[in-house]
C-alpha cells in the first residue's frame, strides 16, 4: 500500500480522442488529450479556432453528439459532490443529466443568445436552480436574488424582473454565471466567456470569476484564444494545436520560456506595450493556416508553419508529448535544440 496517496484530481481527462465521420473523411477533432485539474485550480486551454479546445470542453460536459458519426475514446473522470468518480463519457443519459449543471456547469461565449428571449431573467435562474434541487419556487427566487447580489449585480430584484434584451452584454454574462453557479458546481467550463464583451467589461467578468472561484474552490477550465486573458486568470496552461496538446505547464513558466515553437509564435503575435514597435512595424503573424482536420500533415502537425522545422525530423514520426522541465510537457522533436 502506498502511503499518503494524493487525493484524486477533481477532473481527470485521460487520453480523450474525438473523431467525426464526415462525408469528406475522418475529422480529427481531438487526439489523445490528457490533463488533470484539482480543486480551486484554473486551467486555460489555448488554441486557434479548430484546435479542438471547444470540443474538449463539450466532451467534459458530456455534450458531444451521441450519433454514430462521432467516435469518442478515452475517459473523463469527474469527482461528483457525493465523492463518487464518474466517467462522463460512459454515464447513461440520466446520470449524465444529473452531472450537468450540478457537478460541472458551463458558460458560453455569446451572452446575447445564451438566454431564452421569451423568459424573464428570474424565471431562467429559478428554472436552473430547480433543475437539480427540489426546492419551492419562493426559495429558488430567494436563491437567485442572493446569487445576483453575490455577483455584485446592482438592484437584483429589478434584474430578475427584466428580459434578456433589456440587459447589457456584461449583465447578461453575469446572469449566465449566476445560472452556472446556481447549483454550486465543483467545476466550471468557461468557453470564451469574455470574447463577446467590451474590454472593460471583460476585466470585470474575469475579476468576478476569479473571486467566485476563490470563494468556492471551484475548478475552472478556461477555454480561450486570448493569451492576455490566460495570464490574468489561469494557473496552468494547455496549448492545443490541430487537436493535440503541444505544450502544457504553469502559465508563468510557459509564458517566460515557451518550448514549443507554436507557443512562441502565439506569444510573439501578441501586441505588447512594453516592446514598443516602430510605427508601421507589422505584428508578427504565424505564416500559413491551421491544417484541415481532415488531412493533417505527417509528423509534427505544426511543422509546415514552423521556422525551426528540419526535413527528415519534423515530418517523420509524430513527436511524443514529453516532460521538459518540472510540471511541463512539450511536443516537439527539437525542443532541446531550440531555446
Amino acid at each position: 500500500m502506498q502511503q499518503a496517496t494524493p487525493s484524486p484530481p477533481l477532473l481527470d481527462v485521460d487520453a480523450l480522442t474525438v473523431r467525426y465521420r464526415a462525408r469528406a473523411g475522418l475529422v480529427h477533432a481531438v487526439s489523445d488529450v490528457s490533463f488533470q485539474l484539482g480543486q480551486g485550480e484554473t486551467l486555460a486551454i489555448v488554441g486557434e479556432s479548430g484546435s479542438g479546445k471547444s470540443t474538449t470542453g463539450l466532451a467534459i460536459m458530456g455534450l458531444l453528439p451521441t450519433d454514430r458519426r462521432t467516435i469518442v475514446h478515452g475517459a473523463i473522470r469527474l469527482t461528483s459532490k457525493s465523492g463518487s468518480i464518474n466517467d462522463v463519457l460512459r454515464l447513461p443519459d440520466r446520470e449524465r443529466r444529473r452531472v450537468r449543471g450540478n457537478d460541472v456547469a458551463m458558460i458560453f461565449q455569446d451572452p446575447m443568445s445564451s438566454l431564452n428571449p421569451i423568459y424573464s431573467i428570474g424565471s431562467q435562474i429559478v428554472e436552473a436552480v430547480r433543475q437539480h434541487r427540489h426546492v419551492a419556487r419562493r426559495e429558488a427566487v430567494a436563491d437567485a436574488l442572493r446569487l445576483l447580489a453575490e455577483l455584485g449585480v446592482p438592484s437584483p430584484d429589478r434584474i430578475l424582473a427584466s428580459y434578456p434584451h433589456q440587459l447589457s452584454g456584461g449583465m447578461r454574462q453575469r446572469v449566465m454565471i449566476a445560472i452556472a453557479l446556481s447549483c454550486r458546481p465543483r467545476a466550471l467550463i468557461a468557453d470564451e466567456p469574455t470574447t463577446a464583451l467590451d474590454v472593460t467589461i471583460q476585466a470585470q467578468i474575469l475579476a468576478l470569476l476569479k473571486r467566485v472561484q476563490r470563494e468556492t474552490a471551484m475548478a475552472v477550465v478556461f477555454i480561450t484564444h486570448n493569451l492576455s486573458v490566460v495570464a490574468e486568470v489561469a494557473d496552468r496552461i494547455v496549448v492545443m494545436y490541430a487537436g493535440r496538446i503541444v505544450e502544457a505547464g504553469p502559465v508563468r513558466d510557459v509564458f517566460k520560456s515557451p518550448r514549443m515553437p507554436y507557443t512562441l509564435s502565439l506569444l510573439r503575435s501578441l501586441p505588447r506595450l512594453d516592446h514598443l514597435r516602430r510605427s508601421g512595424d507589422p505584428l508578427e503573424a504565424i505564416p500559413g493556416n491551421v491544417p484541415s482536420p481532415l488531412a493533417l500533415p505527417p509528423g509534427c502537425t505544426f511543422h509546415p508553419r514552423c521556422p525551426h522545422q528540419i526535413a527528415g525530423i519534423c515530418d517523420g514520426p509524430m513527436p511524443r508529448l514529453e516532460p521538459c522541465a518540472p510540471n511541463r510537457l512539450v511536443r516537439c522533436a527539437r525542443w532541446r535544440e531550440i531555446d
Partner: protein
Amino acid sequence: MMRNWRFLAGASIVVAVMAVAGLAPVLAPYEPNKSSVLLLQTPSATHWLGTDELGRDVLSRLIYGARTSLVIGIGAALVAVLIGAPIGLVGGYFRGRIDLMIVPVIDLFVAMPALLLALIITVMVGPSHQNLILVLGFVMWPTMARLVRGQALAIREATYIEAAVAAGGTSAWIIRRHVWPNIMRIVAAQFAIAVSLATITATSLSFLGLGIPPPIPDWGGMVRSGFDYLALNPAMSLAPGAATTITVLGFYLGGSAVE
C-alpha cells in the same frame, strides 16, 4: 404599419364572424330550418336575402351557417396543429433518423392537392361534421409540421438550447420550455391561415355535395343549392359565397400579418 393594418382588418372580420355565430339565435330573424310556402322570394323587407327553394329564410341560414363554417375551420386547423406540431418538433429537434423518416412523408402530402385528397377520403369515410374536421385536419397537418420543423431546426441551434442541455435538462423539457414557446407565435399565425384554408376546402367539398349533410345550414351547401335558382333568387348563392370569402380573408389577413 402595413402589417398592423392587415392584422386589425383580419382580426375585426374574425371577431365579427364569431359574434354572428355566437349570437345566431338572437340575430337570425327566423328559424333556419323552418320552411314556408313562400318559395324562392327575392330579397324584401321581411326576408332581407329572400327565401330558398324550401321557403327558408336565407339570411337566417347564412347566420347559422357561420357556426358550421367556424366549427369546421377551427376544428380542422386544431387537428392539423395537434398532429403536425409534435411531429415537426420531434423531427426538427432530434434530426437524424427520425427526421429522415418524417420529411418524405411531409413532402408527399404537401405535393398532393389538398382538395383532391380531402375529396377522396371524404368519399371513403362519408360526410359528417366530425369526419370533415378530421379529414381536413389530416390533409393539412404536413404544412404545419413542415413549418414547425423548420422553426425547431433553427431554434435548436441557439445557445440557450445548448445552455439548457448543459444545465441538465431532458429533451422533453427543453422542447416544452424552450423550443415550443419560441415557435408558438408563428404557429398561431399559421393556425389562422389553416382555418382559412380549411374553410375554403370545406365549402368546396360542400359545393361538390360532400359537405355537411342537410338540413344543417352550411355556406358551401347553400351556394350549391342556390346555383340551380340563380335566375330566381341570386342572393341564395351570392350571399354565402360572399360570407365565405370575407371569413377566409379575415383569417388569412390576421394570420399573414403576424408571419
